[in-house]
């Protein structure tokens, strides 16, 4: 509403974030887990007199530095660009609340990247003890980045004690209530375990390249030691997962059971279906590691190790999707809807108009919006309130979802979305459609024309509003 819209045809803006985020999580969690893996491996090598590990660990730390420092950092910034464009209201809310956290995060990032580079470039150049300290320092700082960002991510679903102060203007004073929200600790546990797992899996991918014929004993030890890193996650993740679920509000948890008996509601059952993928991948990954890596470490091939990484990608992607789906229909639970509308603004926007409250809609269009619904006006409504989650022809395609419906049936759905009654199934997943009757009629006309190629039902006529002018148009947000 306060920002221009970002139209990504076919894919949708949500998937732009999703694709970047899944890659980022796979790498950034490795950055944290690998931060612990490297000094632990080095310490073990020193303790047990295995100097033959050093060249391999040095090469692994180079791979680690390039992957996390380049691709991890690039995708991290990419997420920022993407969320800023796809959900500017949500991003604005997060920045206003967590500016201090992000400032800290950036400082920690700088220290982390410096330490990662220093750790790699000082192999065999400084005493072992100091080199190891660099590694431990890196491990601490990289985990600190998780400690901070985890608070911001969990806040969106479980804002907890911060919520009563939302919209008061004093939100930043409740920084710690927001950061250490109810979902914080179980999520921190889950993510830390995922980090350890991913460290072991990436290490297996790297060490699978060792020639098992030439360096059999070395490959066996390194691969098996890497495989062990998957074990803590396999044992403890279910515990943290159940804990996490109990922190999720009951109404959102109920979304997970929607798809048990049906696929009838299409996208609504996606949470259940993605949860099944998470359970399956998490439950079987340790088995794959055991059969591939633990039992035959010397013959572990790169393609087999990449198979394990592929499973990790599936597990990460599905889990992050479930987390995102569970938050529906909010960006910040109980405060900001996924279409960028604040809960507190709904009545105002219904009375004064959605388009009239947007600084990005030309004054002439707003004047029209007061009494004359047109498909062109409806397109503005579509861009403002539907594009965040839907596309016309691709992901969650409105042309597909509304097919076989005439203008009247489309109007009925829009009325249901506008009324947003608690017992409506749509209310669980979709935000309210806000706007005046003229604006909603305009959206109906636009969707009818888009889906059916023409207007299939009579258009509603509204009496002209004499007092409306661009100058009078209320700008709810300055």
């Amino acid at each position, binding site marked *: 509403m306060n920002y221009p819209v970002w139209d990504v045809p076919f894919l949708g803006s949500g998937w732009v974030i999703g694709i970047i985020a899944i890659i980022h999580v796979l790498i950034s969690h490795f950055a944290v887990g690998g931060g612990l893996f490297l000094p632990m491996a080095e310490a073990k090598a020193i303790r047990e007199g295995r100097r033959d590990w050093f060249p391999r660990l040095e090469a692994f730390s180079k791979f680690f530095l390039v992957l996390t420092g380049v691709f991890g950092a690039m995708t991290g910034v990419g997420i920022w660009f993407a969320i800023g464009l796809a959900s500017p209201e949500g991003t604005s809310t997060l920045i206003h609340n967590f500016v201090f956290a992000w400032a800290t995060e950036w400082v920690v990032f700088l220290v982390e990247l410096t330490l990662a580079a220093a750790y790699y470039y000082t192999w065999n150049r400084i005493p072992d003890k100091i080199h190891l300290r660099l590694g431990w320092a890196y491990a601490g700082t990289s985990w600190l980045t998780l400690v901070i960002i985890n608070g911001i991510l969990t806040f969106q679903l479980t804002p907890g004690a911060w919520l009563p102060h939302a919209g008061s203007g004093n939100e930043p004073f409740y920084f710690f209530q927001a950061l250490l929200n109810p979902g914080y600790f179980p999520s921190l546990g889950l993510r830390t375990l995922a980090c350890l797992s991913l460290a072991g899996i990436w290490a297996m991918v790297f060490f699978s390249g060792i020639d098992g014929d030439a360096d059999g004993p070395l490959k066996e030890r390194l691969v098996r030691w890497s495989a062990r890193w998957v074990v803590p996650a396999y044992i403890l993740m279910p515990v943290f997962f159940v804990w996490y679920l109990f922190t999720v509000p009951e109404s959102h948890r109920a979304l997970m059971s929607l*798809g*048990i*008996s*049906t*696929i*009838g509601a299409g996208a609504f059952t*996606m949470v259940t*279906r*993605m949860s*099944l*993928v998470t359970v*399956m*991948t998490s439950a*079987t990954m340790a*088995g*794959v590691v*055991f*059969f*591939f890596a633990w*039992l*035959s470490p010397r*013959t572990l091939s790169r*393609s*087999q190790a990449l*198979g394990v990484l*592929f*499973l990790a990608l*599936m597990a990460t992607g*599905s889990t992050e999707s479930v987390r995102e789906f569970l938050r529906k229909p909010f960006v910040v639970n109980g405060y900001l809807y996924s279409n960028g509308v604040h809960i507190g603004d709904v009545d105002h926007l219904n009375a004064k108009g959605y388009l009239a409250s947007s600084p990005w809609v030309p004054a002439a269009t707003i004047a029209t919006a007061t009494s004359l619904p047109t498909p062109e006006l409806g397109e503005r409504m579509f861009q403002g309130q539907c594009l965040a989650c839907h596309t016309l022809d691709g992901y969650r395609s409105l042309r597909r979802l509304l097919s076989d419906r005439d203008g009247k049936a489309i109007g009925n759905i829009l009325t249901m979305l506008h009324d947003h009654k608690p017992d409506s199934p749509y209310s669980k997943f979709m935000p309210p459609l806000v706007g005046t009757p003229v604006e909603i009629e305009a959206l109906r006309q636009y969707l009818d024309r888009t889906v059916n190629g023409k207007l299939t039902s009579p258009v509603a006529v509204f009496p002209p509003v004499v007092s409306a002018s661009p100058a009078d148009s209320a700008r709810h947000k300055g």
Partner: protein
Amino acid sequence: MHSPVARWLDERLGYSALVELATHKRVPEHKYSFWYYWGGITLFFFTVMCFTGVLLLLYYRPGDEAYQSVRSITYDIQFGWLIRSTHSWSANLMIGSAFVHMFSTYFLKAYRRPREFLWFSGIVLLLLAMVFGFSGYLLPMDDLSYFATKVGLGIPAVVPVVGPWFSNLVRGGPDISGFTVSRFFALHVVVLPALFIPVLLLHLGLIQKHGMSSPQSELDKPENKRKTIPFFPNFAMKDLAVWLIALNVLAFCAAVFPWPLGPAADALKPAPMDIHPEWYFMSSFEVLKLFGKWIPGEFGEFAGLGLFNLGLVLWVLVPFFDPERRAGAWARRATWFGLVVVGILLFTTIWGYAVLPAAAH
């Protein structure tokens, strides 16, 4: 084998011979070893298909109630949609992996002496699997499966003399009806398994007898330079890991892209614009369509059908054209023939989907 229980069991079942065989069997290890897993993957999907098929049998009702029962499985019964989706996806993935297995076998020349019967039995299994797919496609009796089967059963009808008789026999009358569903159901759950399982056992038995085939590049190496790993536990454990990955791929497909159910079949309604067979029949469907356009009348389709079957016969008989383990003119011709077949299959399949009306995409 040292415990009294193990001895007691072995005395009666004699399984130590199997353990002995598995322990001594060795699998070649080389840069093409990746392709060895595809037979196992196909077997895995077949097992899942059987298991989910049995679960579907508990609720599926053939005949006139077919659509309603599938509707109930998909929309009412807890996790019914998942079982149905897993069944359909495993069937498709099984045929997909069987194709990969067949082509990898072909290009690694594993059909050569003395493995001819492995090759023949494998092709029989693939063809039976495709008939499994065709018979299963109709069972939900939604509009797409109804009209696609109608078109499919119209194809053999172009064969002179026996064609119309055969189509009527399979349909159970001049039109597709509840009788057709009952016949397809009997074919799907009784006749085809009764044919498939003995051939499968023969195929697996022949693999045990002949072992895994090595590619020519490996056979050219001196004996002491060739690497092998024990079948049990090394290869078997890796096979298990691959099966777990396959299970995850299957779970992902079944959960994220649940198998849809269209509206109930209605013979009085016009056929959907996007009527098409399953992907593994798309190539033959497209070839028949092309011949139908080039040569008007039923003879066009008949000519297409004849050409397709001629290609299949040549494909089956390739061990006789290229029987020996040495590079020669016939070996090169067989490779080129294989590449042409892959090219035609891929091109006509992609072409078939590309020319479908937009509703199908």
